[in-house]
């Protein structure tokens, strides 16, 4: 625990919530979540970051497999949690529920979002949803070599500007881009980089107005909740889990 005290900037005020989600944070300075669509090479990124020092098990009470591992960077211990690969966080499959709950209630210090560089439009669906929930994220443009082979390149500076988060080009299988990813994640974790994540703009006018109205009410009740707009959208969609969480007061705990 001495190391914990040595780390002033570490945000470990959420350890109770994390423990509830089955994550033991005793030995970590920062908790990093790894999210992404299936088939984007997410597990390769996970292996590239952690080596083979990993632990697999089930999420508490669920049959979904969880892999966690760790790495050190500049005297900080990073704990990496591999979230289930999902296309979205809006449906209510077990996988999506776990990924959503972890980002929402577990409040990881950084969320790495792995996307397939050759299929960016399709992958952005999940990216934009995650950015509504958390404002600390790094985009890992994986499978860059494959994309280039198929004559697709990505202008990562524009992409970074559009999304409001750092974008790192990677090819995890060849370990390309991994050092940059590690240092960027560290900078986001230690607040050297502050993200200004993209917010969904494409809603129709009337829908946008209604979300706004609901959002205001939520902010009045929960001042300081970073993802009130997302919760407003979930309420508009009658998301049973979010309604239940509101009734249970789960969001009060997130704020403390």
């Amino acid at each position, binding site marked *: 625990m001495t190391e914990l005290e040595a780390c002033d900037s570490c945000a470990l005020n959420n350890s109770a919530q994390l423990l509830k989600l089955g994550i033991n944070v005793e030995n970590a300075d920062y908790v990093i979540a790894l999210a992404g669509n299936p*088939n984007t090479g997410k597990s390769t990124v996970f292996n590239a970051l952690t080596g083979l020092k990993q632990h697999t098990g089930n999420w508490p009470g669920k*049959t979904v497999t969880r892999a966690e591992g760790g790495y050190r960077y500049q005297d900080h211990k990073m704990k990496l949690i591999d979230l289930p690969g999902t296309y979205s966080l*809006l449906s209510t*499959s077990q996988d999506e529920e776990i990924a959503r709950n972890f980002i929402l209630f577990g409040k990881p210090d950084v969320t790495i979002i792995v996307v397939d560089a050759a299929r960016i439009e399709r992958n952005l669906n999940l990216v934009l949803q995650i950015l509504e929930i958390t404002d600390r994220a790094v985009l890992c443009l994986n499978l860059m070599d494959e994309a280039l082979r198929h*004559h697709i390149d990505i202008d990562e500076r524009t992409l970074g500007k559009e999304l409001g988060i750092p974008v790192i080009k990677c090819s995890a299988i060849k370990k390309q881009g991994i050092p940059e990813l590690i240092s960027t994640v560290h900078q986001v974790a230690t607040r050297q980089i502050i993200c200004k994540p993209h917010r969904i703009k494409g809603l129709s006018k009337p829908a946008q107005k*209604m979300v706004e109205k*609901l959002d205001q009410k939520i902010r009045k*009740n929960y001042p300081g909740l970073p993802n009130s707009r997302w919760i407003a959208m979930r*309420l*508009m969609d009658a998301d049973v889990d979010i309604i239940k969480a509101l009734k249970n007061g789960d969001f009060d705990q997130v704020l403390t």
Partner: protein
Amino acid sequence: MKEEDTQDLLDLASELRWEVGENFHDTLVEGIYADAAQIAQKTEIKQGEPNPYSFERKLDQVLTSKKYGFPIMILILSIILWLTIQGANYPSGLLANFFLEFLHPILKTGATHIGLPWWLDGFLIDGVYLALGWVISVMLPPMAIFFPMFTLLEDFGYLPRVAFNLDSLFKKSGAHGKQALTMSMGWGCNAAGVVATRIIDSPRERLIAIITNNFSLCNGRWPTQILIATIFIGALVPDGLSSLLASIAVIGVALLGVGFTFLSSWMLSKTLLKGEVSTFALELPPYRPPNLWTTLYTSLIDRTLIVLWRAMVFAAPAGAVIWLISNIYVGDLSLANITIDWMDGFGLFFGLNGVILLAYVVAIPANEIVIPTILMLTVAHLNLIGAGDGVMFELESTTETAALLRAGGWTLLTGINLMLFSLLHNPCSTTIYTIYQETKSWKWTVFASIMPVVLGFLVTFLVTQIWQVFH
């Protein structure tokens, strides 16, 4: 936040929901994709060739075609199974030699040396230790070959194509195409197959896949099938053809298992698990070269060792029980002999015998120890004096085994029925435990355990009756 405030918030939400209509979800997803399209357009730089995925397209057209799709699939799976069975022979032999021939006598001598009483020595070394040694040497090599190969195919992107090809068949039986994968995984190990059903989203179809996984002939049962087919079915024809006929018989049993998978899936989806319509949406990822070393490592850790550990935990007490029943005597007869005599009538009714039934009862923990147990019990029952009295063993040559079994009263009918019963009986206890872990339901665990045995008795009964009509 106060309760009334929450209620207030929810009321506002549902009021707005009424205004916007019931399709807010559509609006939201369309909105997100609109943003995504805009961003992608700004950042994607495309150069050159208009058709960048031509190789993958061609490969797909072959692998999923009407003409080649199924043959290629069967070929690949046969190669994997063949490599597993053949490739495991040698390391299995080495391990068995080490654990059973080399280490076992040393342990026995050691035990005598430190003056362990005969019963403790027998219980621990001839019972628990031998069962463990057997399970490790028979189970570890095939799994260490099968699982990595399977994972490589998965990483390459072939397995989703298998699900794609077979979905129409599974759809007809009310199940999900991904069950094709869990079924093939079951050929390696049913417990691993049951865990693999996690890839199926819908609870109903997942349950069907879990319950029917036992009809996939697992690694532990292939050796039994091969041995019995060689002894009883191969012997029907001249020597040159015997191994061919035996192989056909074993493949026939495996295919029968596939048939039972479809049949029982269909029955379940029409009765107990009626009602819910299947949905199927499967991404067919691009083909990618798999990461060889990581795959080898993770499939060894994640699948092989976990399953092996579970099997050992269950095999140890089974070894103890097997030793106890053959070494505790009531009057002149051992418990094993008493039970065999008692079960014999029942067994013969189904074209089996008391030895087989008792072997399947005590060998619930692992199918691997069925044959050694059968041999031990046969010897004990025939009251032959010599090696293996009250101890599990395997004979060096098939001919010796055949002679022993025939001395035990086995006929061609017994052989055929044993092969059928080996396919259709309760899952091993590792699998039963895994089914409970995955379903968290005693009801379904019991059902999944009992249903195949009932089916097994039904089928062997029918075979026996029909046999008697012609003999």
